[in-house]
């Protein structure tokens, strides 16, 4: 493939004797939505964690836009343009819905022990951030909950907040989404995918999405990867991958 935005080369991640990732190679096409599927325990979430820097791989490299980011910390990867969200929402329990969303926009000049008290320095940026957050949670239909803490939300609403957050950063190159529509009703799930498609087209942002609700996702994605037992078993056009015998076999068992 020519000019992928994200490459994963020969990544191995072991947990004790278990090889959760057993030599994974991926090339995520630039400006497209790529779907990543696979049965339970096939290593998808582990892969997400390796790409975003939460785990360090035992072997292999992660390359973002031609630059090797394998050794970088999660926050350094973010600053290179890599955004991710979490399968099980990791929300800030002390912050409200609006604050959780606002925090996701990086680069606030008021985030310093000195600059924090100089309101003039950050008020402009902050106001824009809050406005954007309001628009974002309006879109994800959790606006009425803006003043609530995560502990007061339902599972689906937490997921929507997680999605709102991941769409906040300014100019990401790629956004990794781990099951963005789990627990969300079908209508809203479609709307989320429509929005993702719209963002892709308008801003040229690449998406890599893990999703189990294939019936919903399949209509929006451009490319697909399938994993099983810590390895990539198929990749290509979505329909092609979903009907690939190896993929079906991996889901049904040998």
């Amino acid at each position: 493939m020519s000019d992928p935005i994200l490459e994963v080369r020969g990544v191995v991640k072991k947990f004790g004797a278990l090889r959760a990732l057993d030599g994974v190679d991926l090339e995520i096409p630039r400006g497209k939505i790529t779907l990543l599927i696979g049965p339970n325990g096939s290593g998808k979430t582990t892969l997400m964690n390796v790409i975003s820097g939460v785990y360090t791989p035992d072997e292999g490299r992660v390359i973002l836009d031609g630059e090797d980011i394998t050794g970088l910390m999660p926050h350094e990867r973010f600053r290179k343009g890599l955004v991710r969200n979490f399968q099980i929402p990791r929300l800030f329990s002390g912050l409200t819905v609006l604050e959780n969303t606002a925090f996701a926009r990086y680069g606030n000049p008021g985030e310093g022990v000195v600059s924090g008290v100089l309101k003039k320095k950050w008020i402009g940026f902050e106001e824009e951030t809050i406005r954007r957050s309001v628009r974002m949670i309006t879109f994800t239909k959790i606006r009425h909950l803006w003043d609530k803490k995560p502990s007061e939300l339902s599972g689906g609403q937490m997921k929507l907040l997680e999605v709102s957050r991941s769409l906040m950063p300014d100019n990401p190159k790629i956004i990794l989404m781990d099951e963005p529509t789990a627990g969300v009703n079908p209508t809203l799930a479609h709307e989320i995918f429509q929005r993702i498609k719209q963002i892709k087209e308008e801003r040229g942002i690449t998406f890599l999405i893990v999703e189990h609700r294939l019936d919903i996702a399949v209509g929006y994605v451009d490319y697909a990867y399938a994993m099983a037992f810590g390895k990539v078993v198929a990749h290509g056009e979505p329909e092609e991958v979903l009907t690939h015998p190896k993929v079906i076999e991996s889901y049904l068992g040998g």
Partner: protein
Amino acid sequence: MALLEVKALNAGYGRFHILFDLDFKVEKQEILIIVGPNGSGKSTTLKAIFGIAKVYSGNIIYNEKDITRLPPHAKARIGLAYLPQTDNVFAELTVEENLRMAGYTLPPALVEERVEKVLESFPFLKSKLKDKAKSLSGGQRQLLAMAMTLIREPDLIMFDEPTAGLAPIAAKEVVEKIIWLRDELGKTIILVEQNAKLGLEIGDNALLLVSGRIAFYGKAQELLENKDLGRLYLGLAK
């Protein structure tokens, strides 16, 4: 009369509603296999029956008694057993200590007897009695967990993906033991299995869950022969 009957079961964790209106029965001495894509609620079904997940509505009838609201340890006492997928043995304890722990509530003499009996069915454990459970392989651990369950001689055993992460040979051994439980010991079994083909081949009845709802319920053989199984299993069913 069915040994276990689940009626209009709605369950989940806290506010996470996962299972919707499940209805099914398990007859004595049968294997019910539960299959379905990730996150479809297979494990939750077992946990709801055993009382670990939260039941919002519906009924669970066991031996003609409504046991919906019974706490887990009370269910264990009337003959139900549940084997979690992971952490189902004490890794830091020896095999012998694990077996004795399994009979913690039984009188000591009975424990001796049952341990003897179980060791005859799982002869490989005899040579490993003094080894810590963490030195066992994944398959051996599943078999140890199974042996521990048998110490209490339950009637209904629920397995949560016992073959997950096992090498094919080890998985085969575990499955053979499950068949043996039904055929030789007359146990009733509910098996959640990720390897659908393997599971459906040994199951009497099958339950296919998609997004917490029943997409198929009937003879396992029938589901195995279903041409659309692949699509169903990938969650593309409408």
